[in-house]
């Protein structure tokens, strides 16, 4: 535990030093990165010990804050979230030193300070065991990330994104305050340890659960509450986006799990709610991702999708708990936790890759790129691996966790009654749709950005990412492969203790992770077979082509010589059939100047897909409230006589009301 505090201190110190030398950006970057690495190294030790060994140690001491008590603890669940936090923040920090290399001015140092603050906030969130401390950490995390989002504040869009994020997170926090205060009223203490599951009426428990879903879901990006995500992630610098999308939104999942472990045995409808949220987030998330024109926006929506998958896992876990089906519960929770880890890896990788593209070609607008695979091959490979992983395709890590959700659903299907069966069938179908759409979405991204011919001169002059950036991406790429291949063993070793912490929720169900790891062994065998065959084929191909003529030529384009880049299929045209198929949900807006004359002059076509909930729900609601409020503004009309009249009337009313 002391080590955790030490690592937090180190990271924070690094941030402070960076702030101190803010006048010299390079030095600031290095200092902050060093702090991040050292702190993570220190923190990983206890975190891993907690995850693997299931140790639990705590520090509790009184604190000079009314209501507050300084109580931190590190159990397996905290550790499981702590590991990706520490790893990804360190990696992203290294990446950031290079990524912000060209920026000048003090804002670099300031941003590093907030980066460190964000890291410390996330660490504090997962170890806090006192409601006030938790809220402090939570808001520190949110505010730090807000300042990071506002890094490039000269752009209006960035400011709007920052505002959206700030408002969303604040509203979420309001829900959390209500939640914690209710729990405190129930148990007479703000200390998590006193929140034993006993003694909550089911109504109160459900209310708390709903508040938790609202509050934590806002951070995690559950579908109706996700609106800040596609705004904030593109606005932030890429290494920050990686951290936010990779680990920060997961703190929402952590909070939900923590609360689930505290409010006692769940009724089945919680599971259904979570699964419904998961399905909507997953399917809509990937659909909107498919329709985006900006790479980072696309990735942000895909984060919503992955959060949806995690929510499905949680829902299945809750459902299994409620129906006393240990296999389903174990598999569901395991899938959720495992996907948390995997998503951190590959989404981090993808955002870093997007950053490299932005760095190299100066834009993330997909249709202005192309052919980067031959200009930055290493980045291209890394991104391709990330894409395969995020699509949940074997043999990479993304598949393993989606696979767990699948077999959790299958088990539910095999065992459960009609309702459970229907739910799980919905999960299976939903996951299948998500898988198909994800392939469409990421082939579009990879294909348009890295393959084919460059569409603009910037893309043409793109350069390979520097050593540091590439190294961090390579690290994550290797991690994706290794975690994917080693998953059976890793899961068996690492998920047992966290699930045991969650066990209060699965009412003491027996946990046997074999139900997860033995099928995964089969998956790994298949993967091994696949890789073996592939290698054989590679050799075979080399033998066959040996000594035969291998010539280069232009792309065969049905008679056209030299197809120009303008003739390529764009990402929009690639996605058009699906977007058109789901236009009811996506509501694409197109602004086109069609070709009219015989000898066509300039024409253009532009399509845009706004967010369903922002455009149809949030924005109109805000507008309505604003109208109502502005209609009330006449109160302050500036005539002093009327002001005195207010006094007179108040006086009269009070006297008549209270004395009458």
């Amino acid at each position: 535990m002391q080590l955790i505090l030490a690592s937090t201190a180190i990271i924070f110190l690094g941030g402070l030093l960076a702030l101190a030398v803010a006048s010299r950006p390079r030095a600031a970057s290095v200092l902050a990165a060093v702090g991040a690495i050292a702190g993570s190294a220190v923190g990983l030790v206890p975190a891993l010990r907690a995850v693997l060994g299931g140790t639990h140690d705590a520090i509790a001491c009184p604190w000079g804050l009314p209501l507050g008590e300084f109580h931190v603890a590190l159990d397996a669940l905290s550790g499981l979230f702590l590991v990706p936090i520490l790893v990804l923040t360190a990696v992203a920090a290294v990446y950031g030193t290079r990524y912000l290399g060209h920026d000048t001015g003090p804002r670099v140092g300031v941003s590093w300070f907030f980066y460190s603050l964000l890291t410390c906030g996330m660490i504090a969130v997962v170890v806090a065991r006192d409601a006030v401390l938790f809220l402090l950490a939570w808001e520190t995390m949110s505010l730090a990330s807000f300042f990071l989002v506002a890094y490039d504040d000269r752009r209006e869009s960035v400011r709007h994104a920052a505002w959206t994020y700030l408002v969303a997170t604040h509203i979420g926090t309001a829900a959390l305050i209500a939640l914690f205060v209710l729990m405190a009223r129930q148990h007479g203490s703000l200390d998590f340890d006193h929140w034993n599951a006993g003694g909550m009426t089911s109504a109160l428990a459900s209310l708390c659960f709903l508040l938790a879903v609202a509050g934590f879901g806002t951070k995690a990006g559950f579908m109706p509450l996700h609106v800040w995500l596609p705004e904030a992630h593109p606005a932030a610098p890429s290494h920050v986006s990686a951290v936010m999308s990779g680990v920060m939104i997961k703190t929402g999942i952590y909070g939900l799990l923590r609360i689930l472990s505290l409010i006692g045995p769940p009724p089945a409808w919680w599971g259904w709610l979570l699964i419904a949220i998961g399905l909507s987030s997953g399917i809509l998330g990937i659909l909107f991702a498919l329709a985006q024109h900006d790479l980072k926006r696309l990735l942000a929506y895909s984060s919503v999708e992955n959060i949806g998958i995690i929510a499905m896992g949680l829902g299945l876990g809750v459902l299994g708990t409620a129906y006393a089906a240990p296999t389903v519960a174990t598999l569901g929770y395991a899938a959720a936790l495992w996907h948390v880890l995997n998503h951190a890896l590959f989404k981090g990788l993808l955002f870093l890759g997007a950053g490299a593209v932005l760095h190299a070609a100066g834009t993330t607008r997909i249709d202005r790129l192309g052919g980067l695979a031959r200009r930055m091959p290493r980045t291209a490979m890394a991104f391709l691996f990330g894409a395969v992983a995020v699509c949940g395709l074997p043999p990479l890590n993304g598949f393993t966790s989606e696979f767990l959700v699948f077999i959790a659903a299958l088990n539910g299907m095999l065992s459960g009654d009609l309702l459970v069966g229907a739910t799980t069938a919905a999960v299976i179908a939903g996951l299948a749709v998500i898988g198909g759409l994800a392939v469409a979405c990421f082939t579009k991204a990879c294909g348009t950005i890295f393959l084919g011919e460059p569409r603009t001169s910037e893309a043409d002059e793109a350069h390979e990412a520097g050593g540091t950036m590439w190294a961090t991406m390579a690290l994550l790429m290797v991690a994706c492969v290794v975690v994917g291949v080693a998953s059976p063993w890793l899961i068996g070793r690492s998920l047992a203790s966290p699930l045991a912490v969650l066990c209060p929720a699965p009412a003491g169900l027996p946990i046997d992770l074999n139900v997860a790891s033995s099928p995964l062994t089969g998956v790994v065998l298949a993967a091994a077979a696949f890789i073996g065959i592939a290698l054989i084929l590679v050799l075979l191909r080399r033998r066959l082509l040996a000594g035969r003529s291998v010539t280069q030529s232009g792309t065969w384009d049905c008679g056209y010589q030299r197809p120009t880049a303008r003739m390529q299929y764009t990402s929009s045209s690639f996605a058009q059939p699906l977007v058109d198929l789901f236009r009811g949900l996506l509501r694409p807006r197109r602004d086109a100047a069609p070709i009219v004359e015989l000898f066509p002059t300039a024409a253009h076509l532009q399509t845009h897909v706004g967010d369903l909930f922002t455009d149809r729900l949030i924005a109109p609601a805000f507008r309505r409230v604003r109208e109502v409020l502005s209609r009330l503004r006449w109160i302050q009309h500036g005539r002093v006589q009327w002001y005195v009249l207010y006094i007179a009337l108040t006086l009269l009313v009070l006297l008549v009301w209270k004395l009458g």
Partner: protein
Amino acid sequence: MDFWVNCLVVLIAMTNLRLLGSSRVVSCVHTVAFQGVLLGVLAIVGASGGLAAHGIVLAAVNIVLKGLVFPWLLMRALRETHLRREVEPAIGFGASMLLGVLLIGICLWIGSRLPLPVGVQASPLLVPAALFTLMVGLFMIVAGRKALTQVVGYLSIENGITAFGLGFALKEALLVELGILLDAFMAVFVMGIIIFHISREFDHIDAGELSALKD
């Protein structure tokens, strides 16, 4: 002696009606001054147990301040601001009278809801009368067009409250009452200054025009 107190109280109430009715700033000022004098008398009469020094001092200060100083200040302000003598009331004579009657009704009702505790010997009319004066003052501020009218209204409020205090011959410490009077004096004084500035900056003292600050 209660008889005299009652008479004074009724007189004060009548002056209020005059305030409501009158359409000239000057007469308003005079009426308020007259109220002040009445209050001084009330202080002497109301002082139960004969003429205590306490009562005399208060009476003197009242008569001097409210009967002489304030009118003088206000007239001076009138002269400086070249105010056209006529106020064009926002609420006409008839309406004002009706409202006055209504206010009297309300005040009487409130008075009836506030039974005097035993041990307080005073005219039962005093509560309504004081409240009425207060309300009339408020009414003048609300209805008045000129900043000056509002000062007069403020004075009338002040009078109503003082009437209350004096009429009950409350054993309030002399120091406090003097402080109160001093404050009232300062208030009027500062208001006068401000009005003077207003007339200089805006070339008028139409309170209605002073509405640049709003949302």
